[in-house]
């Protein structure tokens, strides 16, 4: 069974601080996606990484896919209150390659002004 473990599960920081969220698995994924979910809404895709070692930047967010395609990280620089939300990683491309995503349990981020 493919599982994704996210850490930390909860993070409360002050505006302006940096943070890193980790997503780890013992399984290899062909792609890794990061979503942000706000209260009362569905998840919204932030980025997809597909190549081992790949780094993508989205403004103050930096995403990295591990060389072995088993882990990923999300780094936020100078966090702002608008970054508050639930961050989910999701692995795709299992053996059946049906587009099925395996989600981690999520990291709840609170950025205080």
């Amino acid at each position, binding site marked *: 069974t493919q599982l*994704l473990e996210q850490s930390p599960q909860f993070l409360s920081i002050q505006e302006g601080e940096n943070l890193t969220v980790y997503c780890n698995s013992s399984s290899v994924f062909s792609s890794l996606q990061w979503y942000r979910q706000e209260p009362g*809404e*569905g998840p919204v*895709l932030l980025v997809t990484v597909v190549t081992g070692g790949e780094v993508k930047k989205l403004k103050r967010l930096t995403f990295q896919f591990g060389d072995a395609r088993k882990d990923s990280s999300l780094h936020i620089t100078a966090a702002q209150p608008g970054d508050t939300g639930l961050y989910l990683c*999701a692995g795709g491309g299992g053996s059946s*390659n*049906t*587009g*099925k995503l395996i989600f981690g*349990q999520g990291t709840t981020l609170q950025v205080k002004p």
Partner: protein
Amino acid sequence: EAGVAQSPRYKIIEKRQSVAFWCNPISGHATLYWYQQILGQGPKLLIQFQNNGVVDDSQLPKDRFSAERLKGVDSTLKIQPAKLEDSAVYLCASSPTGKETQYFGPGTRLLVL
């Protein structure tokens, strides 16, 4: 472009009652997914449709849950009878062919008392 629509947004029922959720995917999207998201967890895939055929329903509790997508467009998910542990957010998502980004609806929040 209109997003994924879901209704109702909220539902409160008593255990052993029945409930149905409706989803209308983005126009032209062949693949439709139903996820269950329990509080504090990431979404778990219940069923995946490709047009009106089932691709994956391995995690659907078939003794009480059923889903259909008769005309390959909108879909309904039914729970009969509901249990307390079914309290969750039920998310619908769609993608063009199942290999790309999934777009999520806002979800239906179910509370079983």
